[in-house]
């Protein structure tokens, strides 16, 4: 793995390696000293063209816990507001010797462009591109599901993570809400399918994207029916992305109240689920719209844990992309014997 751009096409082995590494990273985060020396001297740039709280902070925390230097770059208050292109920004980052670039962009495919256009030599991590992909969110969701529904920490009596090495075979996961605008849904559908889980998307017809029949999942227009008859092991609520709905929230459904009644998750719907089922939400939540406060704060809601797991998953992603033989990713054997100190020079020379 050189970049982490999408969960589509991510192999099952790589996905499980990411989850297993996340489990080990999570174990270090309960220590008094949470910092690891692993990425000392490496530079991670957070390049955010879109507003974000938890993803940026999560990536920043993850990089710092691995001792990497972090540079935060947000489009607001930078040269981007003066009209600088993604390419010129990338060349600047390249000149500064960034080892990894975490990018969030409003345009679908921006991360792919950044990784493959030859502008910079750093590892690129997609932190959300338009309505396309958000792989680390899907990984942290899969990690949370695995921890809760496959094997719990300490099940073997020695404090080890019993779910290490496991996939999600046979689990049923319902993804509910604004699928149309959701990169979280797209990333999750592919990753959960790769890991062996069954996925059903539940949304009003107006919020189901064109081409959904090619995705490896089922689609339902009825939440109650899906919950009662299909009995999912996990329900993942999606945020209604009002900022992407031109004409306000009225454009895709008649009224917020009606949406809430038909597709909102509340205590009544929670009661229909099997006892082990968990409730998830990638955040930020619209309380009272897609999820009621009672459901969001219920003991079976793992929403806060998702955030904590996000740090571990992003540490794993940064570790797996940034450690390892630089030669094997650059496919040049001559650079093998160069030491860490000279690799920056080499990078700029390339």
């Amino acid at each position: 793995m050189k970049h982490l751009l999408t969960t589509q096409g991510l192999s099952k082995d790589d996905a499980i390696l990411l989850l297993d590494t996340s489990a080990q990273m999570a174990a270090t985060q309960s220590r008094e000293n949470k910092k690891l020396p692993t990425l000392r001297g490496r530079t991670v740039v957070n390049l955010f063209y879109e507003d974000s709280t938890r993803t940026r902070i999560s990536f920043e925390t993850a990089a710092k816990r691995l001792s990497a230097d972090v540079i935060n770059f947000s489009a607001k208050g930078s040269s981007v507001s003066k009209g600088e292109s993604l390419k010129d920004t990338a060349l600047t980052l390249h000149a500064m010797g960034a080892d990894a670039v975490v990018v969030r962009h409003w345009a679908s495919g921006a991360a792919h462009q950044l990784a493959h256009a030859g502008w910079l030599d750093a590892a690129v991590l997609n932190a959300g591109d338009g309505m396309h992909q958000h792989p680390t969110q899907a990984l942290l969701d899969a990690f949370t599901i695995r921890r809760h529904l496959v094997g719990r920490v300490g099940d073997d009596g020695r404090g080890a993570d019993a779910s290490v090495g496991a996939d999600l075979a046979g689990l049923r996961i319902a993804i509910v809400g604004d699928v149309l605008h959701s990169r979280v849904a797209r990333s999750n559908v592919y990753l959960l399918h790769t890991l062996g889980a069954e996925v059903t998307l539940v949304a009003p017809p107006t919020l189901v994207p064109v081409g959904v029949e090619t995705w490896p999942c089922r689609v339902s227009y009825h939440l109650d029916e899906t919950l009662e008859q299909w009995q999912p092991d996990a329900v993942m609520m999606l945020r209604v992305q009002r900022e992407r709905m031109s004409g306000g929230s009225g454009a895709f459904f008649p009224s917020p109240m009606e949406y809430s009644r038909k597709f909102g998750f509340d205590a009544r719907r929670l009661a229909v689920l099997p006892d082990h089922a968990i409730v998830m939400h990638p955040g930020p939540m619209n309380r009272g719209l897609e999820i009621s406060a009672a459901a969001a704060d219920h003991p079976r809601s793992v929403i806060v844990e998702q955030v904590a797991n996000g740090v571990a998953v992003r540490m794993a992603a940064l570790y797996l992309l940034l450690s390892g033989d630089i030669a094997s990713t650059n496919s040049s054997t001559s650079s093998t014997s160069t030491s860490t100190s000279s690799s920056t020079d080499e990078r700029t020379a390339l």
Partner: protein
Amino acid sequence: MHPGSRMPESSTTPGSTSETPSDTPSTAPGTAAARTVLGEADIARALTRIAHEIVERNKGAADLVLLGIPTRGVQLAERLAERLAQIEPAFSGEFGTLDVTMYRDDLRRQPTRAVGQTVLPGSLDGTIDDKVVVLVDDVLFSGRTIRAALDALNDLGRPRVVQLAALVDRGHRELPIRADYVGKNLPTSRSERVRVRLADVDGGADAVVISGAPTDSAATDFAGENAAPENAAPENDADERSAR
């Protein structure tokens, strides 16, 4: 279920095609000169002696914490713990594992390594402060793994004493590190490979095997092996790599 047995690949290298534990020494090409230095009974005796030495040196087993370094150090720690529990009934028989991957100094010179588990014995309550920690590894070579282990320990707490037990000491240290308890001192040349095979990891009988200098591309077969000179000096490293 103990942690070591579900992650035998922790010291191997993901991405490389080597599936180290699967082949037997006799079938691997290029190992015609492989010879067994320690057999099953030798290893058992060495571990029993080390267990007695640990008790003798520390005047009992109070505050003793055994931490095995994955992969094979974990199995050795388990066996030592069994023996210690027999010698000193007060000893709980517990052992832990200490993964050193994220503390290694060669992370950028090797293909990406999978991170293993660090698990402290349950009775410790998550701290090793003021304990007597005995690190257990299979082969002591350059000393770099142990250096990484000492850093890893430092992040877990402040032990009163740290000691090192190794089944085999093959010399060629690159750092000022020595073992407190050694199963067998093996004079080797740098180009030789020392491999510890344990029944519960590799299948077959326990053995310590030395094979000669890799003369052909067969070297690939041992890539990532715990006992392989993965921490060898830079020039050695480069040679190995070009052979792959």
